[in-house]
C-alpha cells in the first residue's frame, strides 16, 4: 500500500538549491572551536558545556563561530546573532527574568498564524536580536525526513535567520528561532516555492495537527495516523492559517491507547486508534513467553533482574478488568469485558495483537491549565471507523467548531465551554445520545435541568386552579 499526496511533491535536490559551498560549511577547525569565545562573558552558560548530556551551549557556540567565519554578505541577519542570543540568556540568568517582549503585528501577508513576533527589551546590549521572530513550519506527519530537505532548510535558515531551530516545538512544528521582520516574506517565498513547504499554526487558529509513528513502524497502530493527520491538515488549511476561532484548537492523532503523542492530554480533538473485535492471540507465542523464551515487554525491563516471567502476576492479575485467565494451558480473554488498555499487548507483543476491525475513539477538550485548570479529554464518541476521506470525522469536527465559534467566549477553549455548558448540551450539539461510557459515574446531585418538553402537561399552570385545591 502507498499513500499519495494531494498534489505532486517537489523532489528536493540539495545540490541544486543550496546556498553555501562545502568550504563555507566547513569553515572552522576543531582547534579554533576549542579556543573560541563568543563576544559576551557567559560563565553560567559555559558551565553547561560540561557533563555528558548534549550541550546546547556548545552547539550554539559552534554555530556562532561558523557564522562569524562566513564572508560579509553571506547572511541576511547579523552574524553575531547567536552571540547575542547567548549573551541575553546569561543576562536573564543573572536577573532571574526574561528579556523578551510581547509579539504583535508581524506575520506573512494574508496569514494570521505561523509567525510569532519577538523583540529584545535590551536591544542596546544585544542589537542582533533586537528583532528575533519565530516561524513555525508545519512538520511532515510523524517527523520522518530526507536529508536533502533538512540541508536545504538549514541553508535557508542560516542565510535568512539565526540558524537556530527547535526540533520540534511542543505542538509538533519545526521551529525557526529568530529573524528580522524584513526577512519573513523572503523566507516564506522560498519555503513555499523551493521547499514546497508551508507554515504551521499559531494564535486563535487550528494549530498544526500531529500524530504518532503509527503503522510506519509500530505494530500497535490501529489506524493510518499519518494519512488522517495529513488529510485533516490539508482539508483545514484555511482554519490553520486564518484565525477565526475563539482561541487555539489542537488536533492530535494517536494510533492506539498507549497514546504516544499525548492527544488525550494535549488536544481539543483527540483521535485514538482502537478496535471493536477481539484481541488476536498466538497461543504458541504465549507458551514461549511463559517458558521464558521471549523477553516480556519487548525487553523494556531487561536492565534489572525482575525474576522469571510470571504471566499470572504480570499480565492476568494486572488486567484492569480481570478479563483474562489461563485455561488448560491456553490464554483466554473475555473480549466483551476488555477495555483495551494495551497492557497485555505491550507485555506480550509477539503473542497478542489488537483486533482487525479498527477505528478511533474520539475524546474532546483537553488543555493545559490556563484558564480554568488543566483538563484531560472527555470521551465523546466511543468508536468511529476512520477511513479516507474521513468524512464522518470531518462532519463531527465541523459541528463542534460551529458550536464553539457560536457559543465560546473569547479565549475559551473547547473543554472550558463544555464545562460551562455541560456535557449533555455538547452531546445535543454533536447529535449523539448520552452513554455511560462518557462518565466515570452518574451524577451524585439531583439538580437535573429538566426541560419543559420533558414533563407531561408542560410548565404553564394556573394559580387559580392551584388555589381551588389549596387555600392561601
Amino acid at each position, binding site marked *: 500500500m502507498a499513500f499519495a499526496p494531494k498534489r505532486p511533491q517537489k523532489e528536493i535536490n540539495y545540490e541544486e538549491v543550496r546556498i553555501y559551498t562545502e568550504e563555507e560549511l566547513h569553515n572552522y577547525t576543531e582547534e579554533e572551536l576549542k579556543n573560541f569565545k563568543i563576544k559576551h562573558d557567559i560563565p553560567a552558560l559555559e558551565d553547561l558545556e560540561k557533563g555528558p548530556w548534549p550541550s546546547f551551549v556548545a552547539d550554539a557556540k559552534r554555530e556562532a563561530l561558523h557564522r562569524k567565519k562566513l564572508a560579509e554578505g553571506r547572511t541576511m541577519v547579523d552574524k553575531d546573532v547567536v552571540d547575542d542570543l547567548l549573551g541575553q540568556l546569561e543576562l536573564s540568568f543573572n536577573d532571574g527574568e526574561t528579556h523578551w*517582549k*510581547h*509579539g*504583535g*503585528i*508581524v*506575520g506573512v*501577508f*494574508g*496569514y*494570521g*498564524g505561523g*509567525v*510569532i*513576533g519577538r*523583540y529584545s527589551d535590551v536591544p542596546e546590549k544585544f542589537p542582533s536580536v533586537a528583532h528575533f521572530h519565530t516561524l513555525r513550519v508545519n512538520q511532515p506527519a510523524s517527523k520522518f525526513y530526507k536529508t536533502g530537505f533538512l540541508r536545504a532548510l538549514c541553508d535557508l535558515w542560516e542565510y535568512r535567520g539565526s540558524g537556530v531551530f527547535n526540533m520540534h516545538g511542543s505542538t509538533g512544528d519545526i521551529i525557526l528561532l529568530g529573524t528580522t*521582520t524584513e526577512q519573513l516574506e523572503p523566507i516564506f517565498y522560498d519555503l513555499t516555492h523551493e521547499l514546497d513547504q508551508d507554515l504551521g499554526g*499559531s*494564535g*486563535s*487558529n487550528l494549530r498544526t495537527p500531529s500524530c504518532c509513528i503509527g503503522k510506519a513502524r509500530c505494530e500497535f497502530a490501529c489506524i493510518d495516523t499519518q494519512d488522517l493527520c495529513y488529510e485533516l491538515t490539508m482539508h483545514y488549511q484555511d482554519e490553520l492559517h*486564518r*484565525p*477565526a*476561532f*475563539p*482561541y*487555539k484548537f489542537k488536533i492530535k492523532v494517536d494510533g492506539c491507547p498507549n497514546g504516544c503523542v499525548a492527544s488525550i492530554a494535549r488536544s481539543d480533538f483527540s483521535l485514538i486508534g482502537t478496535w471493536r473485535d477481539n484481541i488476536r492471540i498466538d497461543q504458541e507465542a504465549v507458551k514461549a513467553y511463559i517458558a521464558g523464551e521471549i523477553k516480556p515487554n519487548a525487553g523494556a525491563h531487561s536492565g534489572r533482574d525482575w525474576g522469571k516471567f510470571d504471566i499470572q502476576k504480570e499480565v492476568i492479575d494486572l488486567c484492569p478488568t480481570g478479563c483474562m485467565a489461563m485455561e488448560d494451558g491456553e490464554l483466554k480473554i473475555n473480549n466483551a469485558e476488555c477495555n483495551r488498555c494495551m497492557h497485555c499487548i505491550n507485555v506480550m507483543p509477539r503473542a497478542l495483537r489488537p483486533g482487525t476491525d479498527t477505528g478511533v475513539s474520539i475524546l474532546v477538550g483537553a488543555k493545559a491549565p490556563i484558564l480554568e485548570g488543566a483538563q484531560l479529554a472527555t470521551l465523546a464518541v466511543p468508536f468511529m471507523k476512520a477511513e479516507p476521506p474521513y468524512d464522518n470525522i470531518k462532519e463531527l469536527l465541523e459541528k463542534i467548531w*460551529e458550536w464553539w*465559534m*457560536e457559543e465560546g467566549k*473569547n*479565549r475559551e477553549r473547547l473543554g472550558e465551554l463544555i464545562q460551562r455548558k455541560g456535557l449533555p448540551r455538547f452531546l445535543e450539539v454533536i447529535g449523539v445520545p448520552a452513554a455511560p461510557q462518557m462518565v466515570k459515574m452518574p451524577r451524585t446531585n439531583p439538580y437535573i435541568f429538566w426541560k419543559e418538553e420533558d414533563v407531561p402537561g408542560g410548565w404553564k399552570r394556573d394559580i387559580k386552579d392551584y388555589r381551588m385545591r389549596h387555600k392561601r
Partner: protein
Amino acid sequence: MEELKKIILEFAETSKKTKFYFKDLEKAVQAKMPDAKSREIKKAATELVNEGKLIYFSTGSTTMYGLKGRGITEDQ
C-alpha cells in the same frame, strides 16, 4: 460581500477598541445583517486582509484583527 466588508471597516474605524476578536467583527456585522453567516464574515475579513486594509495582531496564543494604521503598530 462588499456590504459585509463595508460594515467591518466601519466598525474597525469607529470602535473604541483598536484590536478586535473575530467574534467582535461577527457581532458588529450581525447587528446590521442578522442573517450573515460566520463563514461569510470570515471570507470578508480575509479579503480585507488581502487588500491590506485589516491586519492580524497576535500575542502568539491569541490572534486579533486591527485596522491598518490604527492603534498599536509594528514599530513599537
